[in-house]
């Protein structure tokens, strides 16, 4: 994958700059349109009213930009974590996270607040991941290799806590078994499982994020747990 020699902090700011740039462009465009309208109106009163409306619209846009920026700051780590757990590919998770927030920014004005921002963002992330795998199947020749880390490597990231070396080793083995079971789940089961047990989301939130009913979510979770349990019992 093509790399840019930009530190991660700059990468995070990269998205912000695009968002801020778009926002400024929109505000300037509105101001320009309003100025044109003022010239056409001809009367002082209309000009004052239009200028005030423009200022109001500008302030509203800036407030929306700030609000979106705070949403990005608050939820970017969770979205990245979910995508990392889903793909086990750091580069891909970063790219999809970036695309997720760009897409969210483009559609921010359509967000009605019917669900939480996190649920809305998670839904975008899930769809992007789905699209990615669909495109990958169609264009397999474009990416002949995958950057996903193997299961053992993924299991290494266990905080030691206050465990002995032996307990730590056993815990890693258990985590590797869970990874193995997750690998064998269907895409939908995996998404539901990760949202529940890694992101600690409520069933209603999972249902909203995945577009499934709560009953279906429960069924997927049940099947996923059966497989995880079987994997843990089978390998222990």
């Amino acid at each position, binding site marked *: 994958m093509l790399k840019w020699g930009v530190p991660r902090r700059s990468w995070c700011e990269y998205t912000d700059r695009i968002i801020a740039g778009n926002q400024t462009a929109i505000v300037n465009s509105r101001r320009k349109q309003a100025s044109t309208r003022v010239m056409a109106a001809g009367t002082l009163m209309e000009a004052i009213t239009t200028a005030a409306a423009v200022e109001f619209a500008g302030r509203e846009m800036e407030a929306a930009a700030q609000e979106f920026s705070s949403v990005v700051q608050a939820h970017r780590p969770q979205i990245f974590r979910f995508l990392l757990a889903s793909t086990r590919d750091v580069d891909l998770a970063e790219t999809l996270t970036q695309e997720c927030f760009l897409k969210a920014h483009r559609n921010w004005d359509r967000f009605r607040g019917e669900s939480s921002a996190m649920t809305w963002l998670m839904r975008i992330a899930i769809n992007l991941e789905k699209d990615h795998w669909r495109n990958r199947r169609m264009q397999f020749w474009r990416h002949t290799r995958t950057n996903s880390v193997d299961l053992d490597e993924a299991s290494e990231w266990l905080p030691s806590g206050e465990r002995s070396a032996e307990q730590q080793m056993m815990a890693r083995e258990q*985590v590797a078994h869970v990874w193995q079971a997750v690998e064998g789940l269907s895409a939908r089961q995996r998404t539901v499982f990760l949202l529940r047990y890694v992101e600690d989301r409520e069933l209603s939130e999972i249902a909203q994020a995945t577009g499934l009913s709560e009953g279906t979510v429960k069924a997927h979770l049940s099947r996923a747990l059966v497989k995880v349990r079987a994997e843990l019992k089978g390998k222990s």
Partner: protein
Amino acid sequence: MRLRTGLPDEGSEPDAKLEQALKDFRSSIHAWSEAEYSRPHAATAIHHTSWRLAAGWALGCVLAAGSVTGGLYERHHRQEVAKIAAAAEAARQQKIADEQSARKDDEDLLAKVDNDVSRQVPSAMEPLAQMMAEDEAQ
């Protein structure tokens, strides 16, 4: 934190092992994600896909053109070789035919000369001629 592992059959006996495994799984993903998120890392560019797509298409076109050209050249080359081989075979056949024809002419000529120069042996010399013929036969 207690994980809700027994979700579908909540109220059933707790599966401590599963619960612990899921808790560790969650902790490991959180630790991995935090480590990757805070680590200075090269950013990936979204725009690279178009560049890569173009490069992929260009490479594909070059390979396809190369394959077609190579195939045509190979076919042409084989035709040329076949033509040369056919010409050589025809020349060889012609040469053999010429040789056979020349040999036959010589034989005819010798037969004619032999026929012209030979004379009837006188009857008095016949026993001697027979002896010569027998000697030659032996």
